[in-house]
């Protein structure tokens, strides 16, 4: 292993046993199994299913690199981080890491509600791998960063949740390690505090530490990381500069969905956003765009619902639009192929990232695709809106499409 490599992962795989008959979980079943097949001789393996959370992945990370790991839920991001953090053991493969490793998979791991802030700083520091001497040296800095000086000798169970999180992050932020593994910990606290955390992460990243950062928040990933790794179903799909990875990922949902999506009552053949007669993932909000769903109905249905929801990048539910909303006759549908189209008017959504999610169900009976959400992410931009301050954070999602009318009443 070369000296400038911080983390080297070779053929890493992680298997979980799932499903089948859930035996193994009570002593009675195990004894029964043991008596039937002592020492596993002749045991049948078919009632256990394998699930490979990571599938033969290899990569190297250079010292000082700051890598964002992205991917959908269940893509193996957290498993990878947990293996690197030595919380779970790999099934196959080898990992070599150079330097002191610290992991931050949760803020406030091991905090004890009965103990005071001061006692918890020492306890949490020890859990994260700091020596008592080290913590004592950084104690004042930690307390100052957390902003809970006044309550430092109060049991943390009396803290507000914000104070609790601030104190916990303050300890973690003062970890002195060469390699830092961070999981989605910043999704806590208020906006101001998140900003502070991101700032700290950023300065850690710039101080030459090697950082691996798992997050769903593309904005913070984009700000902090130089490189990115995209995981899907336990495989590394892309590894490279963060911009490219994110762009690929944000377009991925649309390309990657396996259409036709078939269920009992409906087959979805396509789900696209059309603007100026072409499919887009980047919507210009200065003109109308259309969400088009192409689907097939196999038998006559009543109480049929089809529509979309639009969510913010943080998953807040913004807009609902069902066919039946303005036309209740659409809940009766006959077999055949259909294309349904709805206009998302221009200048309604503020520039930003949104998710459009497809909804198809039988009212009172549930969704056609209860386990797979058919959705895609979109970037909305505008050439006109707030054009004097293009980079400013807007902080809202809905716009009024109409310009103001200004009329002069008099000269003075």
């Amino acid at each position, binding site marked *: 292993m070369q000296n400038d490599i911080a983390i080297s992962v070779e053929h890493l795989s992680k298997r979980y046993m799932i499903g089948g008959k859930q035996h193994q979980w009570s002593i009675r079943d195990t004894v029964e199994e043991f008596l039937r097949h002592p020492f596993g001789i002749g045991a049948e393996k078919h009632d256990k299913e394998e699930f490979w959370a990571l599938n033969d992945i290899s990569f190297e990370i250079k010292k000082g690199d700051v890598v964002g790991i992205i991917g959908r839920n269940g893509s193996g991001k957290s498993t990878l981080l947990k293996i690197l953090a030595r919380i779970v053991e790999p*099934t196959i493969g*080898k990992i070599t890491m150079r330097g002191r490793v610290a992991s931050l998979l949760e803020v406030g791991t091991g905090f004890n509600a*009965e103990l005071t802030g001061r006692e918890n700083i020492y306890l949490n520091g020890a859990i994260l791998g700091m020596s008592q001497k080290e913590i004592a040296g950084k104690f004042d800095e930690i307390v100052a960063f957390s902003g809970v000086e006044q309550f430092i000798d109060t049991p943390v169970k009396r803290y507000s949740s914000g104070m609790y999180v601030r104190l916990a992050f303050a300890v973690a932020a003062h970890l002195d390690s060469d390699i830092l593994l961070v999981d989605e910990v910043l999704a806590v606290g208020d906006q101001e505090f998140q900003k502070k955390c991101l700032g700290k992460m950023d300065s850690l990243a710039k101080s030459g530490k090697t950082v691996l950062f798992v997050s769903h928040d593309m904005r913070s990933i984009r700000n902090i990381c130089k490189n990115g790794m995209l995981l899907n179903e336990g495989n590394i799909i892309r590894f490279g500069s963060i911009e490219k990875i994110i762009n690929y990922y944000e377009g991925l949902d649309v390309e990657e969905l396996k259409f036709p999506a078939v269920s009992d009552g409906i087959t979805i053949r396509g789900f696209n956003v059309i603007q100026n007669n072409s499919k887009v993932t980047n919507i210009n909000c200065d003109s109308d765009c259309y969400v088009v769903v192409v689907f097939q109905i196999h038998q006559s249905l009543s109480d049929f619902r089809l529509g979309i929801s639009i969510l913010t990048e943080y998953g807040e539910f913004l807009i609902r639009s069902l066919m039946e909303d303005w036309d209740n006759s659409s809940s009766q549908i006959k077999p055949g192929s259909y294309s349904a189209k709805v206009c998302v008017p221009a200048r309604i959504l503020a520039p930003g990232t949104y998710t459009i999610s497809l909804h198809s169900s039988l009212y009172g009976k549930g969704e056609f695709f209860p386990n797979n959400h058919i959705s895609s992410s979109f970037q909305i931009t505008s050439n006109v809106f707030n054009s004097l301050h293009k980079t400013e954070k807007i902080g809202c999602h809905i716009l009024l499409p109409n310009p103001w009318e200004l009329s002069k009443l008099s000269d003075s």
Partner: protein
Amino acid sequence: MAETITVIQPSNKWKFFDLKELWSYRELLFAFVKRDVTAKYRQTIVGGGWAIIQPLFTMVIFSFFFGKLAKMPSDGVPYPIFSYAGLLLWTYFSNALSGASNSMIAASSLITKVYFPRIIVPLATTLQFIIDYFVATIILFVLMIIYHVPITIGLLGLPVIVFFTWLLAAGVGFILTSINVRYRDVQYIVPFFISLLMYVTPVIYPASVAERFRFILALNPMTGLIETHRALILSQPIPWSELGISIVYTLIIFVIGSLYFKKVERGFADVI
């Protein structure tokens, strides 16, 4: 300074603990012990007094029923001090063992979030009750004064007995807590098992009452430890052969427990 190099690989071999690594985590062990001791009696009125109340009240009840009403023999020693000399160590053993058995489950939020040698968890639990033991010795001294039992140099042997009791509780605890991670049945069995075990250990009766069945008692590793503990307090001759058997058992159990724990700990985060 040489760079630390961490290699992570699946392992299947039986291994003993990496003592060097354990040593480097000693501060965490103390931090856990400190946490348990501080948090335990916080927001209680009696505080550390609870460490005394358990063996003291048991002694009082047993003295009344077994000592006074049932006239349990106690090798010519006043029954209260006789039974307290046994209960003091037994209380430590039973608390340490039941604490250790539940320790991994209690620490599950830690185990799924951060790495440290897992063995520290049951070790810390078994160690924290030693503090309770020493607090409860206050009553022992009071009883020794009341019953005119001479305070002798033999008392210096008590920490040695506590040490072996700790090894025994930890060794059994390692095994039970590992099984408990997978099978929660353990948490229901252990309290029941411990209370039964007390009756097959000469805690509140002298081993001499068992006479012909003494060899059965000797199969129990706590027998020699309890008997010696009491002999040291009451300045009686030390039952060397029983003590020897107990120590051999204890060491074997501790080694097996450690090996077993080490073998299965890598799967804890997956199944807890």
